[in-house]
């Protein structure tokens, strides 16, 4: 069995040279997690499709995307999320090449702060829209908007909670194999949310104001 494993790879951070055992354990775990992400992406695909339909046909005399969307905060949010993906990348590198807990924790905390900034700004945007009378109950378009963007926001928030749990585990258990493979899975999850957000920024915001 080991012979097969030695040649197999998994998409994700390869721990092979520094920690072959974790690498081996990660092989099937990460594969499973990619399959999970695939079903999660089906979720977003459906929400995008629903938004495409309802943002056109579900306006119902209320505000259109062009009336109420602007780019300022979403752009800041994009930057926060993109940078947080980068810092997560640095955390992953610290885990692989340095076995350096302080550095790893530092980058994870930075990632957390950026992610929390993203969620905070999004919540601010949402409450702002609702207070102006553009809540999800206004029209089919706004229902679809809040569902799509909100589902992404909930994903980021659960990523944040997951990150907190893993930070605790880094201190409780140290960098053992479980903690490492969990960090790898969270990393993939985090990057996927980035990709989804780029879709949202493009199709909801850029197309919306255009």
């Amino acid at each position, binding site marked *: 069995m080991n012979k097969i494993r030695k040649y197999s790879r998994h998409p994700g951070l390869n721990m092979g040279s520094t920690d072959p055992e974790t690498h081996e354990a990660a092989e099937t775990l990460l594969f499973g997690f990619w399959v999970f992400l695939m079903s999660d992406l089906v979720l977003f695909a459906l929400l995008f499709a629903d938004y495409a339909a309802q943002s056109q046909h579900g306006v119902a005399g209320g505000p259109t995307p062009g009336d109420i969307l602007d780019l300022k905060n979403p752009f800041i949010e994009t930057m926060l999320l993109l940078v947080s993906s980068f810092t997560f990348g640095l955390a992953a590198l610290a885990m692989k090449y340095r076995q350096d807990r302080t550095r790893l924790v530092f980058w994870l905390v930075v990632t957390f702060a950026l992610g929390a900034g993203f969620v905070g700004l999004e919540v601010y945007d949402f409450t702002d829209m609702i207070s102006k009378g553009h809540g999800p109950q206004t029209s089919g378009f706004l*229902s679809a908007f809040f569902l799509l963007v909100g589902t992404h926001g909930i994903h980021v928030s659960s990523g944040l909670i997951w990150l907190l749990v893993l930070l605790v585990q880094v201190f409780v258990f140290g960098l053992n194999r479980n903690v490492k493979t969990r960090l790898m899975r969270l990393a993939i999850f985090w990057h996927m949310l980035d990709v989804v957000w780029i879709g949202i920024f493009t199709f909801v915001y850029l197309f919306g104001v255009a």
Partner: protein
Amino acid sequence: MTGQPFDYFWLGKLSIDSLPFVEFIRDPNSNTAVGAFAKAAAIGGAMGLMVLLTVFGKWRVFWHEWLTSLDAKKIGIMYIVLAMVMLLRAVIEAGFMRAQQMLAVEQPGPLAPEHFGELFSTHGTIMIFFMAMPFLIGIINVVMPLQIGARDVKFPLLNAISLALTAAGAVLIMISLVIGKFSTGGWSGYPPFTELAFNPGAGVDYWIWAVTLSSIGNTLTGINFAVTIYKLRAPGMTWFRMPLFSWTALCTSIIMIFAMMPLTVATLMLALDRYAGFHFFTNALGGNMMNYTNLFWLFGHPEVYIVILPAFGVFSEVFSTFSGKRLYGYHSLVFATMAIAVLSFCVWLHHFFTMGETADLNAAFGIATMLIGVPTGVKVYDWLLTMVRGRVRLTTAMLFSIMFMVTFVIGGLTGVILANPPVDFAVHNSLFLVAHFHNMLIPGTLFGMFAAYYVWFPKMFGFRLSEKWGRISFWCWSFGFYLAFMPLYALGLMGAMRRSAQWFDPQYLPWLVVAFCGALLILAGLASQVVQLWVSIRDRDTTRVPGGDPWDGRSLEWSMSAPPPEYNFAVIPQVHDRDAFTWMKKNGTSYTAPEHYEDIKMPKNSIVAPVICALTAALGFALTWHIWWLTIASFIAVWATVIARSFCQNTEETIPASQVREEHERWLRSVKALKPAPREHETTSANQGLAEVVV
């Protein structure tokens, strides 16, 4: 349903009217009496189970050996038990529906229309989500890891959690029988009828949460099975050496990964409409029910292939095993299965030809639908050719399989008829359609699951089921099916619409009487299966198959004792051929001791799954009745459980090599003492699970 709530903060919308028997006491009539009977049966069943567990002192065993177990075989058996209990309820409901429709020609009939609406909604929902799905998932759990030479599925705890979520959904549906009322929106729950404006009661919410829980469980199951098949096949088991049942399990799992999500999304969006005033599917303010229809059938059509493909897998194994021949056209069967899996995503629109698409679009989807007949036809020919020149043995499983082949072809033909949009315009939503899909689901899915139950029962429990009672049930089910559903084709063509609680055309009556008699025969078939189980358990000492191979099986699951050890294989076998175990028997490598044994790591039991089952059932109940404190508390508790579990470090235990050796060698010695049975004596007590090898 409009009664004053007891106490909105603590008990939400629950009121005196939602309590059981209140309706019957206030106004005893035939309608409320049937309701009271159902409630009494549900409460009695639950109490009876608890009393039995207490009397026999089995709580401990139940908890340690079953509820907390992470063994895929046990999880599979629990899925199957769940499916059978739900089958019992749904078939009885079907009997009541048939009775109502027969007695409601030009008169109201015994049941109120809303009650009839609840019956077809629970019947359909249960049959699909809580009978067919758990049954096939259960069989896959038991058989697939054994067939591919794995010790377990890849994620055992996730497997238990999937069962927990499905079971929580089933619990919710059972509770709806006792407290309050269920939805009247059918198994498909179409808005705007199911929107708050038209359906303010708790019924639709019961439906939403039961279905949502089970759909999440099924998504996780799909992921788990697919990863298991990709990554855990025994050495030497290349893709094209994988038994066909495992192939269908793989294709079904892949469909689940992609197709369950649209359902989850649709039900959650409907929930947002109902609970938070969103406008996805409402009539006003930009909502559009077509969004729901598309999402639902984007799930719904693949779903019918989720439930049929594993049955195809079972039939393939049965035809080849009981013809004593290698499966004919294995590659074509594999490609046909994959083709069906792909096509299943390209036809969903045929469920709403009549709902406003252009003629061109309808034509395209009509053609795509008919195309599915091609790979399915290929399969039928392969099965026929498997039997040609085989030594066919007509066991119960084989009888069900042959009946499937004949009957399924008829159902397929009516499906091709329905795939013509102009024809569909004439018979859409009529009893013709009801006849068609039962003609696929009963001989296809249900008979497939029965065949699986008959074939693999000895593997699960170590003794065979009574053939006599199996045959009786077979004849009852088969004749019952024809009597109950063929008249519906005629009725549909005469204009009888589905979901009707009352008729105004006296010409329907004779057909409805025949259909009712068919339903009675089906009930007799089900009853004989209950008797069969009872008789077989009573006589188990005469039907034991300690050798583990009662049917001269061809794949790896027959190569170990029955029931198999927790770790399935003492040593993971090397696979040389598509019929791996037949190869071993012919080459004399079956029942041999390996040179050395290794320690085996298995997952420890865990209380996480039963805890999640209880919490998510509470969550669904709280949401249904708007009990917000419980909603928040149980939601947090579910995630707290998951997080707490991630802090557990010792989740595996090691079974030492010495113990594995001892157990395995003890079994090998006992096999030596058995007398190999020729196939003529397969169904007699001479069959001790060791097959005569004919070289």
